[in-house]
């Protein structure tokens, strides 16, 4: 086989995505030319996807500590302490590139990959959230992608048996050639039973467990580290194929094996497969690894060492067991009809030694592989921003009929109900889901305790495009605010950072600014970033996606019975608006959906006000004072009221009066941070007022629920629309494209 291998040259290295400097660095590090297999190892592990070489210098800016933090970045996933001896393990990852090439399997294996990251930590996955971005759903090509992605998620998550409880779907033309598929998984584990991806204990056996290795997904990590051109279709073979049934067996077997006490460390074979695990695990532990590839279970014949090492076949793990306890591991995996084969040992020499039938085919220091190059490439303020910022949305005419504008906004696919997607997902398996998809955050109870967790994802690409720093900070705030509105105290953040090519200074500037914004918001809200993922090169034919940091927030509720959802519950409840008045039409959904423009400036964000508003909303929910709580996001206050009116079991109208002299469209549809709508039963109003007074936040009563119409009096003009009409627009706005 070795004779058939290509000769290693700089051209070959370039073809594998390495630069001339990186190739020189490899030679320097090894003191010789790498073999073909070794070159493959470097090309995969030094890819952007694995090495974060363009992002690492910036990611250091993120706050990653907190008293309740158990595990920060650097492991399979992060973990926070939620009390009563329990920890939540969570992480979000992208599968954008594979999902564009092959939407069904791309999205399905995106779910599979992140779920494995959670259960390698010893946690049982209890919730999945998907943050999806597509082009215009009126475009048949986009519909094909949506259908494929949603059915892929549905197929994998449902069969595996983890509920899909939330996430968002948003649309903008910039995603047409490069959809975003970000999947977050949340798992539950005893705080003192967390497993890590370590290869400790020289002489300990190294087990390959799970699915057999095939030729699928070879160089997936490298593929995900490049932009697309017309030939993207030809990359379909680099997309992996999922098997959720095997994943389910792997979950049960891993958790059972961990209970025996015979497992020392474990890592998912995700991007760069076996190559990644056999170098990262020993690198974290200051050890080495010696593995024999002929023992790796294979489902194809004649695979070369290169292919075995770089295959991204799914549903596989590398597990380091305690020496002498091998049979305990083997027995558990045999029970679940899975392969568990000893393929090597932990060594002390710091080398990854790879053998094929005894012959050494690669011998590389694990540090050299795990520590990829780091770049601090130039950044530049995009030239396009000045003109966009100069645009004043208030130079546009006001809508002739604000009620019609509200109906149109509710029917905009980004705002409209996503029930079409969510009803294809099992939302309840595990019987923990207290709040189903479609409210601000999903809420799941923690059985055996009084507690619950609230989880939400958010990320508005338009806002980040216009003002990356403020926009990214607002994404953190919005996700955290959603958790607070549901009654949760935010505990931690995972981020999935979707950008174009970092080799373009304007894109890298967006990225650097967004990181600063996330860092500022996390510091102000005192939530650490526990991990996440950077996805660069989201470009097709030079068109980059909107810069889209998607933020996932996990929070805890001390009392699962004290939660809130967004819908109005009954007539006669008083409606209050918490938060500042400042809003803007710049970058708003209104400006895009009704005027087709993406321009202007965002409303100012005051992180201290944001923090106080969140605390006040959370305290009001936890005290049982509010009957509904809903964050004002896309579409502004009018859409928040409309959603609250129509998203419950039966529509409940409202009558609201907005004070002020601003333009009607700005008051109704202007977007700004730190704003929350809540409803309060009249009998609890005084208690609520007292709590708000303590909170030192701006707030006011704005109206009352009831009737079958949504009435909003803004200055001289009045929105007066039947709730049923809004409900119809909201329910059909997205679904009419898909049905």
């Amino acid at each position, binding site marked *: 086989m070795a004779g058939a291998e290509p000769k290693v040259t700089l051209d070959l290295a370039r073809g594998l995505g390495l630069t001339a400097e990186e190739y020189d660095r490899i030679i320097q590090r090894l003191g010789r030319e790498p073999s073909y297999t070794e070159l493959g190892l470097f090309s995969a592990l030094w890819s952007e996807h694995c090495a974060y070489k363009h992002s690492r210098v910036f990611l250091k800016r993120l706050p990653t500590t907190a008293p309740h933090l158990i595990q920060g970045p650097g492991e399979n996933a992060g973990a926070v302490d939620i009390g009563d001896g329990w920890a939540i393990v969570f992480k979000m990852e992208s599968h954008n590139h594979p999902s564009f090439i092959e939407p069904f399997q791309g999205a399905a294996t995106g779910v599979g990959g992140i779920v494995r990251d959670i259960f390698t930590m010893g946690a049982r996955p209890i919730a999945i959230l998907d943050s999806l971005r597509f082009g215009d759903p009126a475009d048949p090509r986009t519909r094909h992608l949506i259908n494929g992605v949603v*059915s892929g998620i*549905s*197929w994998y998550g*449902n*069969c*595996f*048996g983890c509920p899909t409880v939330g996430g968002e779907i948003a649309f903008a033309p910039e995603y047409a050639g490069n959809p975003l598929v970000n999947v977050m998984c949340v798992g539950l584990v005893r705080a003192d039973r967390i497993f890590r991806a370590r290869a400790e204990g020289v002489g300990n056996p190294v087990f390959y467990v799970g699915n057999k290795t095939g030729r699928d997904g070879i160089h997936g990590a490298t593929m995900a580290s490049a932009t697309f051109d017309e030939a993207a279709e030809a990359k379909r073979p680099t997309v992996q194929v999922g*098997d*959720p*049934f*095997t994943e*389910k*067996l792997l979950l049960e077997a891993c958790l059972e094996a961990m209970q025996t006490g015979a497992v020392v460390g474990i890592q998912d074979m995700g991007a760069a497969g076996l190559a990644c695990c056999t170098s990262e695990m020993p690198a974290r532990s200051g050890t080495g690894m010696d593995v024999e590839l002929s023992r790796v279970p294979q489902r194809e014949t004649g695979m070369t060492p290169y292919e075995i090492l770089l295959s991204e076949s799914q549903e596989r793990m590398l597990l380091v067991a305690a020496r002498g306890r091998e049979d305990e591991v083997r027995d558990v995996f045999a029970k*679940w*009809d899975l392969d568990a084969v000893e393929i090597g040992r932990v060594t002390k020499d710091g080398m990854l030694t790879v053998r094929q039938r005894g012959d050494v085919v690669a011998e590389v220091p694990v540090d050299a592989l795990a520590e990829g190059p780091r770049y601090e490439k130039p950044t530049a303020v995009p030239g396009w921003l000045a003109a966009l910022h100069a645009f004043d949305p208030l130079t546009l005419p006001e809508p002739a009929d604000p009620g019609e504008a509200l109906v149109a906004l509710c029917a905009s696919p980004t705002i409209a109900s996503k029930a079409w997607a*969510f*009803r*294809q*997902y*099992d*939302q*309840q*398996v*595990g*019987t923990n*889901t*207290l709040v189903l998809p479609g409210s601000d955050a999903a809420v799941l*109870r923690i*059985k055996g305790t009084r507690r619950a967790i609230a989880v939400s994802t958010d990320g508005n690409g338009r806002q980040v495009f216009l003002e990356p720093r403020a926009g990214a900070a607002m994404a953190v705030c919005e996700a955290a605010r959603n958790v607070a509105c549901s009654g949760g105290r935010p505990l931690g953040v995972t981020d999935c950072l979707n950008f174009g090519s970092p080799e373009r200074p304007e894109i890298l500037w967006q990225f650097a600014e967004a990181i600063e914004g996330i860092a500022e918001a996390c510091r102000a809200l005192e939530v650490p970033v526990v991990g996440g993922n950077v996805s660069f090169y989201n470009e097709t034919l030079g068109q980059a996606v909107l810069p889209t940091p998607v933020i996932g927030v996990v929070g805890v509720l001390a009392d*699962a*019975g004290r939660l809130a959802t967004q819908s109005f519950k009954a007539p006669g409840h008083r409606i209050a608006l918490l938060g500042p008045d400042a809003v803007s039409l710049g970058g708003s959904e209104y400006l895009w959906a009704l005027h087709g423009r993406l321009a202007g400036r965002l409303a100012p964000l005051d992180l201290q006000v944001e923090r106080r508003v969140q605390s006040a909303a959370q305290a009001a929910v936890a005290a049982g004072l509010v009957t509904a709580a809903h964050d004002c996001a896309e579409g502004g206050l009018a859409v928040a009221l409309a959603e609250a009116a129509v998203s419950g079991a039966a529509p409940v109208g409202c009558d609201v009066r907005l004070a002020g002299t601003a333009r009607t469209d700005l008051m109704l549809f202007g977007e700004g941070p730190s704003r929350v709508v809540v409803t309060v039963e009249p009998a609890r109003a005084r208690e609520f007022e007292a709590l708000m007074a303590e909170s030192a936040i701006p707030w006011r009563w704005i109206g009352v629920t009831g009737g079958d119409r949504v009435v909003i009096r803004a200055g001289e003009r009045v929105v007066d629309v039947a709730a049923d009409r809004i409900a119809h627009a909201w329910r059909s706005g997205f679904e009419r494209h898909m049905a």
Partner: protein
Amino acid sequence: MRFGVVVFPGTWSDCDFHYVISEVVRQPVRYVWHRDRDLADLDCVVLPGGFSYGDYLRAGAVAGKSPVVEALGDFVARGGFVLGSCNGFQILCEGGLLPGALMRNECLQYRCQSTSLLVENVDTPFTRGMPPGQVLTMPISHGEGKYYADPETLRTLKARRQVVFRYATADGQVVRAANPNGSVENIAGVVNEGGNVLGLMPHPERAAETAMGGTDGLLLFQSLLGTLVEDGTFLRR
């Protein structure tokens, strides 16, 4: 009453049933591994939802031939109760313990949603605690729940009152619009001729606590227990 919850590779409602039986219904319960044949200590065997063996063939086809399902024949013959929900219903049909078959949903998509069920027969051990004409609210979650039986079988089923649940509107109207998966005559659940094996696509274990949105699923367990609990307190009629 002692319950057993069967675990196939790929089962996922096992823990949910176990939780409801032990924590809500407060009855003794153990897991039953798919290779086990010894059911002697059990009064009721539950076949939960999931994707047994991945359901890569037909849903329930492989599990229908598993050792535990083979052992169910004797268990049923001696009067033991069997409750199959979702994948469990599919397995009971594939294993020949219930008539009919479950096919791909008519919409060709997975469906997870709340449904209303008209209880058509309140004289089974699983429904005898319910008033006639009762409508239950229970969620479904499946991709292959379209019940089918040939006309002959259907006639027999109806003549013997083996149709237990039909998808209906909230006020009990059995109409096309209330049918989430295209099941023939809106059939959501059937019993065997002996009345001690029930299969249904909805998930009673997901409707057994107020916090989860409803407790209608509990009525199944309460009916069942009423037939065995000595003081008969669960019997409403």
